[in-house]
């Protein structure tokens, strides 16, 4: 199938995703983070497209995905509902295997989706990201506080949206610079800043869900989980099995040398680990 950007009206909002690869193959659902676009997954799309059906949505408010006026529409539950609709659209009879891969805030969405799909999800891959519950419970880890310095800025009323509107490409470049992603590894897109202004509302939406994340105990997800983490992440401290296992008993963590965008910096190793994960007995 020729790579295409599809758009559909989902729950009253125009929603877009890149679709590519083999229609006969299992689905790989790639969820990008902030301030990225689906192009951040280019190395994975090219590697897996011959064998898998690739779906890489533009998160709410990024690129052609219509922004929402309500902050709550950027929250993990609303996004999970949108993703369920996208999956229904590409896999109407739920006959295909589905794997979900999430990075950064895309990881929050991936965890939320995994909780809804249950046994229907064949595997979850998290790259330099956490669930909302895991993030909330890091309140007592000083090494995480130091890395989360930018979050209060993202929670300011109107400021991130306004700055993101005025200087989108500069904000994207700044994020990459702070995260250690050299220019050679950055996605080559015409307007890289399309993921900046409106998607910044994700932070406010997730902050609204924090009290619930702190007090609830999510049911464990039944599918296997592969966590891939670049160990020089400026924004997230390395994960531990202790913090992940309550949400997924079948978790494996692989720490690689690399930054927050390890799948851009070290795509061969990331792709190899994912290949292995997708073909492991029990996962395939």
């Amino acid at each position, binding site marked *: 199938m020729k790579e295409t950007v599809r758009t559909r009206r989902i*729950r009253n909002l125009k929603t877009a995703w890149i679709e590519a690869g083999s229609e006969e193959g299992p689905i790989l659902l790639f969820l990008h983070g902030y301030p990225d676009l689906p192009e951040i997954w280019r190395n994975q799309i090219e590697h897996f497209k011959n064998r898998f059906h690739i779906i890489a949505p533009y998160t709410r408010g990024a690129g052609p995905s219509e922004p929402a006026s309500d902050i*709550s*529409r950027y*929250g993990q*539950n609303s996004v999970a*509902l949108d993703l369920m609709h996208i999956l229904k659209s590409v896999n109407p009879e739920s006959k295909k295997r589905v794997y979900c891969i999430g990075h950064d805030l895309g990881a929050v969405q991936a965890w939320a989706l995994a*909780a*809804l799909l249950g046994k229907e999800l064949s595997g979850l891959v998290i790259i330099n990201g956490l669930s909302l519950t895991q993030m909330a419970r890091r309140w007592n880890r000083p090494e995480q506080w130091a890395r989360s310095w930018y979050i209060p800025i993202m929670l300011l009323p109107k400021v991130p949206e306004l700055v993101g509107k005025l200087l989108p490409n500069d904000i994207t470049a700044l994020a990459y610079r702070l995260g250690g992603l050299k220019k050679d590894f950055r996605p080559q897109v015409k307007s890289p800043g399309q993921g900046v202004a409106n998607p910044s509302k994700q932070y406010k939406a997730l902050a609204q869900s924090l009290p619930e994340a702190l007090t*609830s105990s999510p*049911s464990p997800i039944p599918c296997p989980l592969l966590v891939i983490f670049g160990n020089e992440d400026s924004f997230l401290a390395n994960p531990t099995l202790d913090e992940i296992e309550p949400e997924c008993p079948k978790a494996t963590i692989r720490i690689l040398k690399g930054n927050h965008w390890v799948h851009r910096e070290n795509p061969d190793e990331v792709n190899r680990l994912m290949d292995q994960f997708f073909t492991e007995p029990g996962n395939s």
Partner: protein
Amino acid sequence: MKKDLQGFLESQSLAEKGAREVAGMVREGWTEIQAAKLLSTCLKDYGVKSFFHDAFAWFGERSGFIGMKTYGDFMPSKRVLRPGEVFILDIAPIFHGFVSDIGYTTSLGPNEELEKAKKFLARIKKDLPPLFVSGKSGAAIWKWVDSEIQEAGFTNAYKKYPFSVLGHRIHQASEKGSHLQVMRFGWQSLWTLVSRGLFPQLLTKRHEGELSGVWAIEPHLAGKDFGAKFEEILVVDKAGAYWLSEKKGEVLNA
């Protein structure tokens, strides 16, 4: 009394749309808490800013209120849904100032007992409206439904609602102060009922007085290990008594 029935119909249609959408997504392994949260989120995404009551979800035997004693027992729980089990989604949004209250019953896969219960409830739904204009009292209607449920071999589950209501009136309500809820009921639910004297607003086994108005009627039965209900708006006015859903496509104004 002049009410804009179109507003109530839109509120109810939206609630039903949300319930059907979420019911279609419910999977084995979901908890009631998850289902209720998703239903609430779904309606908020469609523009609902406030609730007469927030979402409830009851799975399996809890759909018949079996073993439930205190009000706290009715809150969405960590009960997990298993294949073949019945579940109920119940939510009451305030949409553009109009309250609706719906109950949607289905199952995760085929369930013969539920199909029998649904056939019975369909008959009750057909027989109820004429009773509201027959001269019967509200109390008599309550007892009629109760007796029909028992004769059909089920148990009356609506006895376990607060005040054992078969239904309650609904009105236009404010969308402000949406976060002020007590046990999932918005402050509006208390105000719209108490400010009008409370008991005439509730269809209980002791109800007296006139029956005209806009009601949310919710016959709820229990079988051996499940329950089933429907909940819809019934209008009683000069035109008679009718389910508001039967007026879809018409321009309404009472």
